[in-house]
């Protein structure tokens, strides 16, 4: 029997390794491409051994890419903080108070997610032009916050529903105001949910492409990383080395953030599947 168990053990480990490798191929491809010379990149047969160069990264440093990455960081994180903050407060209200037409309101909030965002890109473009919000940080932050809010409200409501009401009642009786009770009692216990919601919101805002492309000017001041990578055209078509280098650097901040909150994330994605 032990041999059989060993066999299945190795088989499962091998399968996991295989799947992970398959998933990591694009990442590998990006990393090696970013380290290759242009001629190696466009070689008809992929070169596995090549001369390493950092010229692609140097080109990036010379371009506006890092200021655009900074835009991504500012817009992504600000909209995430806003969406999670407002979402948590409204989820708390939905969870704890009697609200007239609560179900309808919640459905309405969710329904904003039912339309593919691309459908509204033209109306929003026109609105933003009139409001002079095009190519501004504020405009994109507002948009991403709005998109993420419905998601944040629904997810956070689930988490807050799980926190027993007695905790706040006790705090109220002990001399705290409702808001103090929220800060001191509800928030610490909702931290897992907040982290999970924040990861999802950040990834959505971070990766958003269509609006970022349409609502900013080429080379404008609020361009985020995703449209900037696409616009990395050289004189002879796409400069794939620069694209790969930009993409790799683009992955790093969100990977670090996800790594930092990974424990909460696991609980977040399995939310509802596991009952305490």
């Amino acid at each position, binding site marked *: 029997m032990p041999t059989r168990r060993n066999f299945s053990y190795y088989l499962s480990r091998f399968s996991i390794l295989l799947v992970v490798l398959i998933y990591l191929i694009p990442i590998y491809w990006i990393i090696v491409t970013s380290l290759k010379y242009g001629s190696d990149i466009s070689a008809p047969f992929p070169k596995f051994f090549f001369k390493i160069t950092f010229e692609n990264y140097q080109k990036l440093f010379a371009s506006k890419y890092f200021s655009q990455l900074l835009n991504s960081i500012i817009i992504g994180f600000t909209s995430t903080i806003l969406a999670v903050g407002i979402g948590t407060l409204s989820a708390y209200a939905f969870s704890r108070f009697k609200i007239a037409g609560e179900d309808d309101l919640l459905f309405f909030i969710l329904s904003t997610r039912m339309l593919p965002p691309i459908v509204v890109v033209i109306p929003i473009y026109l609105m933003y032009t009139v409001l002079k919000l095009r190519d501004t940080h504020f405009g994109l932050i507002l948009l991403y916050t709005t998109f993420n809010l419905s998601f944040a409200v629904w997810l956070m409501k689930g988490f807050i529903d799980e926190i027993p009401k*007695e905790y706040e*009642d*006790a705090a*109220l*009786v*002990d001399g*705290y105001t409702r808001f*103090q009770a929220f800060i001191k009692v509800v928030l610490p216990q909702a931290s897992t949910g907040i982290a999970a919601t924040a990861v999802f919101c950040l990834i959505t805002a971070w990766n958003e492409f269509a609006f970022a492309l349409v609502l900013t000017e080429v080379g404008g001041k609020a361009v985020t990383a995703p449209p900037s990578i696409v616009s990395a055209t050289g004189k002879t078509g796409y400069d794939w080395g620069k694209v790969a280098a930009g993409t790799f650097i683009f992955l790093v901040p969100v990977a670090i953030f996800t790594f930092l909150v990974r424990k909460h994330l696991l609980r977040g994605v399995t939310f509802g599947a596991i009952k305490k």
Partner: protein
Amino acid sequence: MASVRLESITKCFDDKVALSQLDLEIEDQEFFVLLGHTGAGKTTTLRCIAGLEKLDQGDIYFDNQPMTELDPASRDVAFVFQSHILYPHLTAFENMAFPLWPRKLPEIEVKRRVQDVAEMLHIEHLLWRKPAQLSGGETQRVGLGRAMVRRPRVFLMDEPISNLDAKLRAEMRTEIKWRQKQLGITTLYVTHDQIEAMSMADRVAILDQGKIMQIGTPIEVYNQPANIFVAGFIGNPSMNLMTCRLSESNGEIYGQLIGHLQVALPETIARKGIAREEVWLGIHPENLVIHPQEEDNTIVVEVHNYEALGAETIVDVNLGLDETDQRVTMKCRIPPDQQVRVGQTVWLELQACSIFDRDTGQAIKSV
């Protein structure tokens, strides 16, 4: 410390009436128990007193000061909940200090008060643990400590020990009652367990469907239940209740139980009911005596089952079938040295009983 007065308070949830026109007066330093089944309105009463629920009607006073419009924070009460007593993200010390923080006491005073109470409850060694590392009894102790550090005007306890096992519950009963007497803080204690009510209360109020059925000392509600609801609730086992027809012959008053079975009733009791044809008869199990032979004023019954509990034996006797062919049984409490066996024919003597109105279920007190 304060006396608490509720004046015809009414509370509805949507269309359901949780409390209707409830009047209650709790004296200063009293240990007052609210007893009732689930959904009787006990917890709602506590939550109204704490200010966690808004009243639909009526007023609440502490020492004649109106409380009705005050928010929970200004009422100076401490609430001990049934579950979720401690904040899981704080240590036992922080949990106990939690009610003191909004009072802006100096840090050293907070520490001193928590230490004092912890010493009193013998939980000093637990102070740095998180709630997850505490057992059920320890959690309850810390929860009690949390209520005590504040020295509130009123303690409100909502089934604080019903999640504990039986042995621990008995320990905590004694502990809570003793602490309450020591601190002299007016306490309202909610429970569905009549043993808790009987063993701890100075006075007890029995609630049913948002109405008070009876208020009195444990002995009063046991010996003189105001209605058949209280009679059927208090005592373990509770009173035997059955309808019976009254008749008079040869100057004696008889209660006709089922069929031809009739029993002579103590005259002082029966006189009150003679004006009515039919009454509810309530008999405490200890007021039924089992004789192995026929004696005066006994009825013949059969032993259906018995539980030898050690200090006493509870015997179920079978009286026969009623008009609807249901078996009619009564519970008797007999001394442990008296032997019975299942199926045995015995003679039952009734020593005392209460009677209640057939229609209203209220105790009949005078003619």
